């Protein structure tokens, strides 16, 4: 159970004046159950990359395997792929269209050919998973607040019970609280369901404390790929492409340069605080 990309290239509007080579020789493998962050500057090809995962975009060259099967082979069942790899687009609330939230969330399962009853069970389950309050189920999706709309839209994809959930910048345009709420909810979702979760973002700070692996995209190529602390250790290269490691990385490196012997691979504020106080304790003891 995994997704494997081999030498994927993608070119938009090939042969026209607006030709754009958006993905260049991208290879990677994502095992089932992993919580992955894809990060990169605007225009680095993140959205293009993830649209390949459920076959919405077909690579100009290269191969993509889902569970070991080449999805570009003849007669591959794209519809089933799309219900197994759920893709939540950027600003997903722009896709809401039904008269009420509950019916809208039922749209996905209905397209899967499930019975009305089953659709409702799944819709309810999905709305609960994203923490959408029950009292708003029968409200028009257009009357909700930004954060609630987004939850409803994410539930619309979750209701299909995908094995892989891909979210394109799920926090774009939300306030800091709404952002943290959504991210916490997604992390919780990953813990509860064992789904593969792929989280796209352009902010390191956002995803650093959640994901177990970070893939850094730059100008259509895969620049770095590894555990967060490993990726952040390349903070100078990240800066050069307009990204930044979390602030704690800078603090730890700064301390080290000034002669305080701390480990520099902390990724969250909590870890850093612990490391610093531990080191200070140690130094005091030796005075």
């Amino acid at each position: 159970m995994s997704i494997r990309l081999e030498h994927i290239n993608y070119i938009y509007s090939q042969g026209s004046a607006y030709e754009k080579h958006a993905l260049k020789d991208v290879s990677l493998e994502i095992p089932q159950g992993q919580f992955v962050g894809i990060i990169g500057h605007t225009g680095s090809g993140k959205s293009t990359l993830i649209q390949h995962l459920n076959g919405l975009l077909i690579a100009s060259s290269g191969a993509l395997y889902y569970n070991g099967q080449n999805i570009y082979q003849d007669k591959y069942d794209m519809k089933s792929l799309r219900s197994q790899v759920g893709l939540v687009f950027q600003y997903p609330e722009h896709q809401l269209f039904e008269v009420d939230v509950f019916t809208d969330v039922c749209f996905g399962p209905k397209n899967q050919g499930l019975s009305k009853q089953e659709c409702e069970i799944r819709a309810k389950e999905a709305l609960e998973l994203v923490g959408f309050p029950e009292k708003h189920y029968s409200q028009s999706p257009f009357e909700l607040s930004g954060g609630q709309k987004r939850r409803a839209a994410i539930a619309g994809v979750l209701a299909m019970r995908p094995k892989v959930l891909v979210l394109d910048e799920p926090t774009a345009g939300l306030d800091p609280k709404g952002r943290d709420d959504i991210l916490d909810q997604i992390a919780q979702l990953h813990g509860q369901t064992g789904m593969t979760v792929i989280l796209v973002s352009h902010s390191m700070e956002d995803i650093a404390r959640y994901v177990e692996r970070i893939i850094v995209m730059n100008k259509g190529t895969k620049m770095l790929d590894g555990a967060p602390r490993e990726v952040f250790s390349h903070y100078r290269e990240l800066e050069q492409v307009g990204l930044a490691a979390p602030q704690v990385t800078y603090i730890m490196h700064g301390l080290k340069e000034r002669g305080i012997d701390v480990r520099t691979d902390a990724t969250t504020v909590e870890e850093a605080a612990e490391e610093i106080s531990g080191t200070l304790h140690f130094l005091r003891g030796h005075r």
Partner: protein
Amino acid sequence: MIRDITIGQYYPAKSCIHRLDPRVKIVSTLLFLISLFVQNSLLGYAAATVFLGGVIRASRVPLKFIVKGLKAVVMLLMFTVVMQLFLTKGGDVLADFRIFEITEKGLRTAVFMAVRLIYLIIGSSIMTFTTTPNALTDGMESLLRPLNRFQVPVHEVAMMMSIALRFIPILLEETDKIMKAQIARGADLESGNIIQRTKAMVPILVPLFVSAFRRANDLAMAMESRCYNGGENRTRMKPLVYKTGDYMAYAVTVIYLTATFVLGRFVPFHLWIF
């Protein structure tokens, strides 16, 4: 998916034609189109070919693109040519199919009608390939300004046109995104009978309209908060000013017109089409 429509599209390049004032391009294109329809001598068309060829070369738009634009109207072209071929009578009969016949005059008219239409399409698409929609509406507004005297709201019409043009690519992109999002939720847009397909459009059209209204609203708000209230006393940040190159372009057009006129009037009779 939807983005591959090329007709009326701008082709970004750096060329002397791209740099020309939009008014020059509009006026010259119009004159060129008129010249196509008033002349009917072989040498006149030769002059048109030279003129058009020169402009295409100077514009740096690949020929491939121009031909692509022609493909869209190929049906219309065929229809016109066939009609001309069979329905124009005169001169020797070349072929006789009992019910209809092809005459010498019919053949000539058909051939030249085809050339006219092709030149017409190429001529006007050169204008849209080398001029941004915004520059085009600016040029139109400036050229039509005298109509203000007759109570025609020239500025308002031009503003509406440029807004509409500006929104076409945005709405196409939006449609593309919404379609993808619904396909990702399992929507089936391709199969089924006409009723099922129409129903399948609802999840696309509702969000599209919602978004169009939202954008219209935002735009109106933004314009009002910058105190926009129509054309009166409004000045431009970049007023259209003729430069040397523009006068030269006008001169080239005038030379072309004179040439076709002279050639049309004074060439030997046997080179005439009708």
